[in-house]
Structures are given as C-alpha cells and as structure tokens.
C-alpha cells in the first residue's frame, strides 16, 4: 500500500517559560511529540487517541503545516507540510472541533463561495460538491444563516462541508463530535464512513469519544506523552490493555461462587446471577464448557471489555512505569 502520511522520528519540543518570581523565569523544555513514527496508507481511516496533552493536536498541527517539527522527517502526499504549506493546503481538509474555519459573522454560503474562489475549485465541480455536501450533511436550510447563529452540531456539519469542497485527498478531524448531540453524532459518523468508502479519502481523526473509533476506524493509534503506545486494530487494543471480558451466568438457583479455573474468577454474585471475569485474549469456550458441565445453567452472555476502561488502564500502567 502506498504510504500517504509518513512520520519518521518526528519531534516537537516546546520551551515553556514559567514565572517563578518577579523577574525570574524558569525555562523548561516540554517534549510534546517524541520520536513519533508511523505511516498511513491512502484511503485509510485512522483513529488517533490519547489523554489531554498527549500530543494529538500537536501532531495534527505538524501534519497540516501549522507547526514546524523540531526534528525528524514528515511527509504528506510527498510534501513537507512546514515548507510547502500552501501547496499542501489544496490537497487537505481540516476540521477543528473547538473552533471554526468559517467566517463567523457571515452566512454559511458566503464562506463556501469564498472557498470556491480561494481554492480555485472549477465551477462545475464546486456546484456538484456543494450540492452533494448540502444534501448529505443536511445544510439546505442553514446556508443563509450567519455562522455565529448555528448550533454546535450545525456548525460542525458546516465546517466539515467547508473542508471537503475542494476534494481533499486527506481529511484531518480534531475532535469532530465534541459537544454534539446523539443525532448529530450519528449523522456526522455516517457521512464520514460514506466519504471514506466512496471517495477513498484518507481520514485521521482525534477524539475522546471511543464510539467514533468503534464505528469508523479499522485502525487506532494511541499516543501518550508524545509517544505511540499502540498502533493496530481496535480489537487488539483489548489485549494490549490487558482488558478482561465478563461472562454473565444465570443459574437455576442461588449457589456459592462458581469455582472457575484461574485466571477466571467470580467478581460479583447477585442471587442466581454470577459475573466472572476472564482475560480478553482467551476464548470463552473452555470456561463455558466447564460451567455447563458442573452447574445448573439457565442462560449466559459474554460482555466485551469497556474500551474506555482499557485505555484508562493503559495510560495508568504507563504512568506507573514512568514514575518509579
């Protein structure tokens, strides 16, 4: 597969000055991104997650050419973003969840008309793209509304459309569903899935909402303290995070806790219902067979680990190791 985004030991070091006295200042270097390497193929849809301050936004800012890396090699579509910012701008779209790229005081359509000229989008293609985006993102009634009067969800849809008018090859989304209601979230996710499937647009999205990742991304990268701590399928994250699945068992009557083979163990008993935890990496079959053979079973179900808990555990483990 062709590598579309390439990072090779990319670093970003900030110098932070802190006031320690009237005139005294302490200088400290903060490594926001530390020897980060990864590649994203054309057409991939990748989730990029990590706690606040992990380096997600800094990475996006380097990919878009806003920030210049302190070290390493970074290429998007073969272009060095910091050196050829405007050339790359024609080929990428960016949506910042926290702030709009639209002109705040003007009707939505004015922003689009300006983008049309600014990006030199051919007339026919502009009209075609605008029609399609207006339809898919349900913007028809919002076009004449000043951006500042739009709700967060409406504005986000407006921003996504603005980022896609010029048919970018790559779309960066920084927290695209932050603050959106369920309906808006669903609409945005549906749209992104379609975009990726139909246009093969490469998508990199950062998010705090793991449902975004579950529903959209086949690949997830986890960053913490500026380093990549996980890169792979979402399913694999469970194992990497040493997550546990839960087997919920309904017995015929109240019984003492089931004697399960380690490492499986009963974590909760409530009347005839018992909860058993076992490693996510192990198949449930053995455990189930054993219970069926030895206990009066009525019903059972397996619950996947809560991914948020898995990631929280992942961060916690790393922090424990970092601070001996």
């Amino acid at each position, binding site marked *: 597969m062709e590598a579309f985004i390439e990072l090779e030991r990319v670093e970003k070091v*900030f*110098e932070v000055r802190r006031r320690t006295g009237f005139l005294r200042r302490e200088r400290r270097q903060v490594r926001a991104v530390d020897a980060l390497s990864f590649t994203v193929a054309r057409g991939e849809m990748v989730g990029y997650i990590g706690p606040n301050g992990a380096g997600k936004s*800094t990475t996006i*800012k380097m990919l*878009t*050419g*806003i*920030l*210049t890396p*302190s070290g390493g090699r970074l290429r998007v579509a073969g272009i060095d973003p*910091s050196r050829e*910012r*405007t*050339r790359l*701008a*024609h080929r*990428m779209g*960016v949506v*910042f969840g*926290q*702030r*709009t*790229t639209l*002109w705040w*005081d*003007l*009707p939505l359509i*004015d922003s689009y*008309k*300006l983008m049309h*000229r*600014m*990006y030199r989008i051919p007339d026919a293609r502009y009209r075609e793209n605008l029609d399609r985006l207006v339809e898919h993102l349900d913007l028809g009634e919002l076009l004449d509304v000043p951006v500042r009067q739009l709700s967060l969800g409406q504005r986000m849809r407006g921003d996504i459309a603005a980022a896609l008018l010029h048919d970018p090859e790559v779309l960066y989304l920084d927290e695209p569903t932050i603050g959106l209601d369920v309906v808006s979230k669903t609409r945005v996710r549906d749209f992104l899935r379609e975009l990726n499937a139909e246009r093969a647009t490469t998508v990199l999205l950062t998010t705090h909402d793991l449902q975004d990742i579950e529903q959209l991304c086949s690949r997830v990268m986890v960053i913490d303290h500026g380093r990549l701590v996980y890169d792979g399928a979402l399913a694999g994250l469970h194992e990497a995070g040493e997550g546990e699945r839960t087997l919920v068992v309904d017995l015929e009557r109240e019984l003492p806790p089931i004697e399960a083979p380690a490492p499986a163990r009963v974590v909760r008993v409530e009347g005839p219902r018992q909860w058993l935890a076992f490693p996510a990496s192990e198949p449930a079959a053995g455990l189930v067979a054993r219970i069926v053979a030895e206990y009066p079973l009525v019903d059972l179900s397996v619950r996947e680990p809560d991914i948020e808990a898995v990631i929280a555990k992942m961060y916690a483990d790393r922090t424990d190791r970092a601070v001996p």
Partner: protein
Amino acid sequence: MRGASRAVEGVRAYGLIAGMWIRSTMAYRASFVLTVVGNLLLTGLDFVTILLMFSQVDALGGWTLPEVALLYGLSVTAFGIAQLAFGSVASLGGRVRDGSFDTLLVRPVPVLAQVAADRFALRRVGRGVQGVVVLGWALVAVEVDWSVGKVLLVPVTVVCGAVIFSALFVAGGAFQFLAQDAAEVQNAFTYGGTTLLQYPPSVFGRDLVRGVTFVLPLAFVNWVPAAHLLGRPYPLGLPEGAAFAGPLVALVCVLPAAAVWRLGLRSYRSTGS
C-alpha cells in the same frame, strides 16, 4: 520569482476576502452610509480641533491654517488608506490568543493577506475621504509656486505615506506574535504618529523631530515634502532632495516590516503561541 507569485496570490486573496466583506456590508446600504458618515464626522473632529486653535491664534509654530491643513490632509489621507488596507492586522494578537490564527494557516493563501483583509471595513473610507477634502482645500488655499515636480510630489507623497503607515501596521501586528496584548503599543505608533504629523515640526522638540525623521521616518509622510511645496526650510536642515526621498524611505520601511512579519510567523509556527 517565487516571491512575486506569492505577492500576486496575496493580492488576489486580499481582493477575494475584502470583496466578500464589502458585499456583506452592502446588504445593509442605509446602515453602511450612516456609519461612513459617522466615521467621517468622528475622524473630522481632529481637524475641528485645529480650526478651534486657529480661532485664537494666526499661526501655529509659524505655519498658517492652510499650511497646517496641508500637513493634516497629507497625513490623514495616507493614514486613512493604510488603515483601510492594513488596519485589521492590529487584531492579530486576539486571533493568536483565541487560537483562531491556526485556521488561517491551513488555507492555501498567504497569511498576511488573510489577516489584513479580515473584516475589511469599507466604512473606514470616512477618514480618508475627510483627509482628501481637507487636502484639496489646502492645495487651493496655500501659496505655492507650482511646477511639474511639485504637482507630482503630492500624489507620490500620499502613496508613500500610505506605504509607510502600512509597514507600521504590519510590523506592529507582527510584534503581537511575541506580545499578544501589544495592540496598544501599536496604536501609540500608528494613531499617535498620524496625530503628531497633523502639527508642524516647529512645535515639537528637536529630539522628537530627530526620532520621527531618522528612527521612525514619519517626517517623510508630510513634514519634508510639505516644506518643499511651501518653500520652507526642511526640519533638521535635511538636504534639498529629501522631499523626493519618499519612495526610498517607503522601501526602507517595507523591507524590515516584511522581515519582522516573517520572523513573527516563523516564531509562531515553532512555538504554537
């Protein structure tokens, strides 16, 4: 070559953005006309102040009312053009602070054009119009021994003055990359500068005139060329050709302003703040 094509891109983008703002203002024609008139009257108060002074005295630092009006007209017209074109750069600090500056960097056009054309306010023509009116009256009222050179000197001076003030706006804006609350410092130089130039150099101390000539060469916006037109001695005994040094001085202002802008932008892109 690359610089030239970027400049063309910048001018094009400026036109696009400013055009959008003008169209949006024109949606409310009556309100637009009112704000222009208001702007005209408000900025005209400066000239009313001068008129009031002349109701008490016959000359200010040895300069008559039409002569002071010539200074005023040249300075205010040049400043009006610069403020209309680059005044928005003064709000750069706010954009850096609230993070919206990042959104300018992901667009395929030069950042300076975007910042300068942002919220392009055509109502600001009020100041320039008022300056032109005063300048027109002054040119008729002053006693000048007109020659081709002197006639040409007037528009050249206005353009060069506008460039000098624009450079000041850009440099001041670039300074806000480092100190985001520095808008007031910038105002002191831009608005302060134009107010200063409304009065003859002879009313100011020698050191101030020196500073305004050699450090921040505002003297070339009007003092020196006006002295030439009126056949008055130049401030600080500058050589005869100084009146025609405007284009050179403007260039000398633009180069460091452009350098400071680039430096500020580079610093922003390396620190993200």
